[in-house]
């Protein structure tokens, strides 16, 4: 098992498909971080004073914090003074008014990434808010959404056009003091997405944002805020890619979701940021705080993620189940290959009565990668009749990778029922043989088995994403079993 077959060599030699750099003049601030940089970002974006104050508070708090060490990942120390905290495409300082104004090179980039931005977007029925490095450059379908009363815009626009909503909800799910990276994000975030779905509205289409890190040595600090008012419904898709870079780039996003009574938010992510090369050089550090607050009764927040990229992923999309009978879900596929390290999972905090949560996590490890599931299910004394079911499976491909499971269960209510199951195994030799005997190629057989392994998660994804996720997975795992 220790020797690599030609296919494995092939696989390991696989180049990152999205690795190209767009040549655009960027308006980039010199590396380093202090209060002046924060004031610069804030003034550059013409922000109201409450936001600048909030940023500065976050920054001052961040200075008192230390980087967390508990995750099962290893990396060189990050020099936060070596990162540039603002990079905007220079040619369009005020932001494009329509797609025609967008730099054709940018559009070309999106084409290469296969983002359905133009007519393809319309065909696919997807509204795209594309974030190029830090500034949102194009938003489609605004009119149709506006008709329904849905606000879907870049975070900067939201700050400008809906400051009251931002002030009301920003930081209420993930306060700046939450953790080291959330504090950093709160201080320096440059852009992101904002969604507001008013009472009783069912968002007429899937909302989608593609994130992309382009300029060298720029950190990316998006901030996403989604608010679903009473009885509303929204499905949000997030796709992430980054070009090939030799140096590690920090990505520390914050996503906050708020669901009021009977509201439902479905948040799907496909992340295939640059994972570094076969020697573990380069790649994105993806340190993200995502949390949903089921603030209302019978509300529901569902996270689905397919994580195949990044050198290091540190991410725990969570649900605070505050409202009675609210529901939290977490469906995850995490693939780690070569020297990738993934430490991901979720937290389900049961506060309200009759709250339910489901966790399905599928981890695939190959090469020399380390893949960890870390989760917390917490049942507070108030959560009468709470239920949690967790299924956590790991698949190992290759004898130099690792798969780890760290589930925390804290139960303080006797009427709660918590069930956690986990298995770890290598890809089934008998299954593989069975497929080969039926005439399938090994690659197809592996694809089939791996897709079967991930089926419970893929079926939670919106159709467009499910197809993309499956393709991504098969590309990532070609020849991974010899």
């Amino acid at each position: 098992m220790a020797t690599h077959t030609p296919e494995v060599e092939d696989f390991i030699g696989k180049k990152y498909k999205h690795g190209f750099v767009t040549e655009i003049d960027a308006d980039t601030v010199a590396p380093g971080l202090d209060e002046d940089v924060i004031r610069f970002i804030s003034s550059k974006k013409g922000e109201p004073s409450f936001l600048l104050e909030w940023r500065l508070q976050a920054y001052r708090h961040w200075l008192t914090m230390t980087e967390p060490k508990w995750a099962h990942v290893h990396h060189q120390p990050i020099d936060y003074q070596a990162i540039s905290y603002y990079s905007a495409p220079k040619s369009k300082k005020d932001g494009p008014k329509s797609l025609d104004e967008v730099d054709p090179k940018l559009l070309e980039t999106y084409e290469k990434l296969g983002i359905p931005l133009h007519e393809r977007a319309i065909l696919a029925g997807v509204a795209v808010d594309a974030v190029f490095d830090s500034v949102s450059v194009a938003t489609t379908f605004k009119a149709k959404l506006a008709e329904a009363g849905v606000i879907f815009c870049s975070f900067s626009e939201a700050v400008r056009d809906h400051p009251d909503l931002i002030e009301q909800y920003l930081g209420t799910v993930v306060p700046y003091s939450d953790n080291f990276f959330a504090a950093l994000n709160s201080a320096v975030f440059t852009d992101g997405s904002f969604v507001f779905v008013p009472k009783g509205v069912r968002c007429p289409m899937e909302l989608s944002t593609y994130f992309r890190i382009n300029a060298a040595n720029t950190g990316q600090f998006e901030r996403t805020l989604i608010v679903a008012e009473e009885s509303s419904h929204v499905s949000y898709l997030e796709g992430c890619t980054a070009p090939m870079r030799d140096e590690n780039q920090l990505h520390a996003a914050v996503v906050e979701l708020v669901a009021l009574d009977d509201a439902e938010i479905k948040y799907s992510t496909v992340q295939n940021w640059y994972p570094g090369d076969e020697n573990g050089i380069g790649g994105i550090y993806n340190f993200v705080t995502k949390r949903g607050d089921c603030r209302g009764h019978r509300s529901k927040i569902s996270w689905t993620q397919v994580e195949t990229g990044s050198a290091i992923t540190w991410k725990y999309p969570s649900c605070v189940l505050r409202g009675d009978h609210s529901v939290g879900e977490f469906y995850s596929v995490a693939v780690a290959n070569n020297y990738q390290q993934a430490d991901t999972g979720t937290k389900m905090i049961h506060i309200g009565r009759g709250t339910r949560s489901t966790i399905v996590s599928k981890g695939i490890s190959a090469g020399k990668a380390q893949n960890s599931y870390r989760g917390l299910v917490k049942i507070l004394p108030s959560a009468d009749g709470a239920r949690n079911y967790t299924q956590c499976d790991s698949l190992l491909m290759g004898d130099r990778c690792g798969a780890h499971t760290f589930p925390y269960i804290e139960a303080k209510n006797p009427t709660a029922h918590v069930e956690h199951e986990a298995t770890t195994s290598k890809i089934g030799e008998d299954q593989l043989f069975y497929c080969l005997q039926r005439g399938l190629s090994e690659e197809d057989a592996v694809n089939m088995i791996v897709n079967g392994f991930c089926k419970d998660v893929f079926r939670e994804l919106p159709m467009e994403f499910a197809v993309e996720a499956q393709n991504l997975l098969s590309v990532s795992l070609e020849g991974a079993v010899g």
Partner: protein
Amino acid sequence: MSQTAANDNGAAALSAAETAFRQSLAGPMVANATVSALRAAGRAAFEATGLPGIRDEAWKYTNLRALARRAFAHGGPVPVPDDAAVESAAIGGLAGPRLVFVNGHYVAELSDLPTVSGLDIASLASLIQDPEAELPENLCRLADPGQHPFSALNQGLLEHGVLLRTHTGTVISDPVYLLFLSVPGAEPQTCHPRVFIDSAVDSSLSVLEHYVSLGSSQNLTNVVTELQLDRGSRLRHYRVQDEATTAFHVGGVFARVGRDARLESHNLHFGAALARLDLEVALNQPGAEVEMNGLYCLGGRQHVDNHTRVDHFAPHTRSTEDYRGVLNDRSRGVFNGKAIVHEDAQKIEAHQSNSNLLLSEQAEVDTKPELEIYADDVKCSHGATVGQLDQTALFYLRSRGIDAEAARALLTFAFAEAVVGRVELEPVRRRLETAVAGALPDRSLIENLIGADA
């Protein structure tokens, strides 16, 4: 803030440890040089870390404030309980040698040491006074004082305990009974006994460690057990902790399992205000196997923390684990089970399960079953559940005429019996069943059933 608290804890315990040292040094000097060296190493390791605080991941759910606040006397006069008290505490009906320890000290008058062919038994306290005595090579080497502050403390105060060694190829049918009595004195006592068991090649042995208090002891027992299983040996290790609910109990069981050897570990907690047990098993050679059974049956404000860890260092090794908790009143159970499969340890199996019954509104359980896997040809699983009794089963029993309370007791008993039933020593099993039944509301029904051997 917690960091400071942890340091304070450390400082308090350290000064208590210092006091203990001075007291022990005031006694007869240790004649054996190996022991002096081990003590110094243990002491240095403890001083380096101090007592752990809740910021330490391994102590996240167990706060030692209550323990660190107290002053324990070490090495005071040993009270000698009368025979009747000893017999009522002891589990009767066991054939084989019985060694009785009072507050950690071996008491020959209370013990019964028939010659058992193929088995050597030695009291550590007498060995360390012999400059020529050869101590087991791995004494204090299976428990890592750098990782476990309490083991370090125990090693620093190494004096009392017992060494058991089987001879190659011998099957010893009668169990060795180690009875540790905790007897209250004028002030709370602390003791640090050590048990070392060397299972020789192809031998078979059963050992029972039984911890029990006479009266409402507030003593701290800090015991370390080291188990060495040589090729093809089999060891059944029973550990029953039934101290007073006012007592403190800290224990470590550290095992190294050799080729084709098999360890059965049974670890049952009923007593102590605060108990913590670290069970660590290294499966070092192909064919090594461990089965771990655990039960914590708690009430009042008891807090019991079980940490287990299995290291699969070699291919073709196997571990299974079944720990169960029954939590009444305001008790709190903590379980942390870790299975680590190291690189190249292929063709292994590791299965782990932790189930908990929360029977009262204020009971709490924190459980964390962990897997760390660095090989690929493995079959690993773990599961954890927290819940109440199965409502369908409850209705079924009631529909057969059994009242609700008795039905609950019966189901709870059955839940625990899955672990208790694996105890092969009949008198011990009976005692445990009685202990489980004693914690339940309708005791008479269960006792009736235990008696009804249909």
